[in-house]
């Protein structure tokens, strides 16, 4: 997403092992080059730290969505059972939400989970640009099998650093 229209040439280096990839990412960054993207077939542990990525805040978003769900559930049960049409159901107290609340616990819980889970996943799809029929984001189809790709803007001396770091294939585009 960072590089949109400017035609800066990029260099793509393929690696064939996740441990080599991690040390390569560290070497490339130590040599002063900026990595724009890394494509891997599975979550490589420690890669986000090696690349210097910030921690994701999606768990916090899920917590907020859960609070929203709880609020919706409280409003729904209060309006329907207490405010709009209170009824005598098995003698349960219907004049005050707090007194009737124990019977609503399952609903409060389910709606909290429902909102947290679904809205988090929607957020996840949107911020990653994932939707049905989207074009594949990875430039090389081998990176969903067993290859790992580092993508970065072309620069002087970069190819040597990549070769030394263990890249098995380097392409400029």
């Amino acid at each position, binding site marked *: 997403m960072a590089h949109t229209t400017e035609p800066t040439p990029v260099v793509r280096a393929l690696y064939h092992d*996740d*441990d080599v990839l991690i040390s390569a990412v560290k070497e490339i960054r130590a040599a002063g080059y900026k990595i724009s*993207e*890394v*494509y*891997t*077939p*599975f*979550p*490589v*542990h420690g*890669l*986000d730290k090696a*690349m210097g*990525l910030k921690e*994701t805040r*999606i*768990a916090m978003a899920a917590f907020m969505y859960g609070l929203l769900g709880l609020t919706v559930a409280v409003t*729904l*049960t209060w309006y*329907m*059972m207490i405010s*709009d*049409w209170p*009824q005598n*159901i098995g003698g*349960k107290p219907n004049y005050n939400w707090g007194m*009737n609340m124990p*019977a*609503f616990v*399952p*609903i409060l*819980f*389910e*709606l909290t*989970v*429902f909102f*947290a*889970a*679904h809205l*988090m*996943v929607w957020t*996840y*799809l949107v*911020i*990653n640009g*994932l*939707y*049905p*029929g*989207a*074009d*594949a*984001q*990875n430039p090389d*189809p081998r*990176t*969903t*099998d*067993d290859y790992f790709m580092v993508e970065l803007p072309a620069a002087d001396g970069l190819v040597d650093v990549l070769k030394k770091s263990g890249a098995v294939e380097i392409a400029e585009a």
Partner: protein
Amino acid sequence: MHYESPVRQPLILGDKSYNQITEDVVRPIENPAPRSWWMVFSIALVMFLWGVGCLAYTVGTGIGVWGLNKTVGWAWDITNFVWWVGIGHAGTLISAVLLLFRQRWRMAINRSAEAMTIFSVIQAGLFPVFHMGRVWMAYWVLPIPNQFGSLWVNFNSPLLWDVFAISTYLSVSVVFWYVGLIPDFAMVRDRAVNPVQKHIYKILSFGWGGKAKAWQRFEEVSLVLAGLATPLVLSVHTIVSMDFATSVIPGWHTTIFPPYFVAGAIFSGFAMVQTLLLIVRKVFKMEDYITVQHIEMMNIVIMVTGSIVGVAYITELFIAWYSGVEYEQYAFLNRATGPYWWAYWSMMTCNVFSPQFMWFKKLRTNLVFTFVISIVVNIGMWFERFVIIVTSLHRDYLPSSWSMFSPSFVDVGIFVGTIGFFFVLFLLYARTFPVIAQAELKTILKTSGEAQKKHHSDHGAHH
């Protein structure tokens, strides 16, 4: 960097590379179906269509075509509902609870277990919906404004809690499953040669490219979903049990029901996972991934939860006696020695005695024996629900209205139909979806692969 204790057994057998995992997972998708698949699929389809016919007959004529009577108003329908929901629980347990406990052996089996969850909850949902009689009014269970006042749904009712619990459970399970499937669909898309196949998997994979930030979010989302799904799965069967426990029927009105139902659900669900995976690993040659160790682990879970269920049965009997309530005492005496004694003792034999064989390592690592026990357990768990529902109802407070229940051909047909529907869905899944979460599995290859472990220990010997 990669270290694991040498006492841990490898989870992936043989000399596998990342590419070999890809090849093995994609093989059933890229190759034509074996003849055995078509045979089983045809049988399942016929069963399903028979069930559709019986459902159509029920809707057209009314639920009077079932074997229900004035005394026994809930029978096979609710038995089947609880049975199918219970089976579903193992999938969430494997993918969510075992993820939170960092149990790596879950990775080879979680995809299929979650598929089983979704497909069995779909079957479960059919029963209460069709029990409504006028199915076209099923939307009345939703809190939507209407022309009667608005007359709202009753949030005090366990039956409505069930609506919310089951629909949350089904939809969250689908989402959890799909988040994990996206990277694996991308893998199938990137290899596909046939343009039609490539296009379908392009749609299914949502454009996934395996960017580092996307993976970071993926792992966080998986963890949070597991954290949400764990209490969710416990809440679902708890609420199902409250359908009974909050009533005033002797034999139902017990506080032990929620934990007892949850344990039973896990028990029957793991048995169904065993049944399915023993077939999948054989037909699709996945023995290197779904190893005997995996089967053994699940057998241990079956043994433990089966014993918990056994303790619950005995506790029920004790509490019935200790309560001093004669109706409660009679309900249990009637279960064990009344006209439905055969159902009670089938339940006891299948659920309490049969899992005890799993104390022996020889038996719990024997695949044929495991397969037989997995079927026996599921029969036993069906009887458990039948015993709880029908034997508690058929002799109520008023002896003049005591009666017996016998299913009509429609009851049987709908049940057989859901089994067919379940297998139709599962067989289609097994041919078109990656049945193993290959991206996740690749993360443990270096620590838990057989060849890689051997290499590590040989290497370690030099130091």
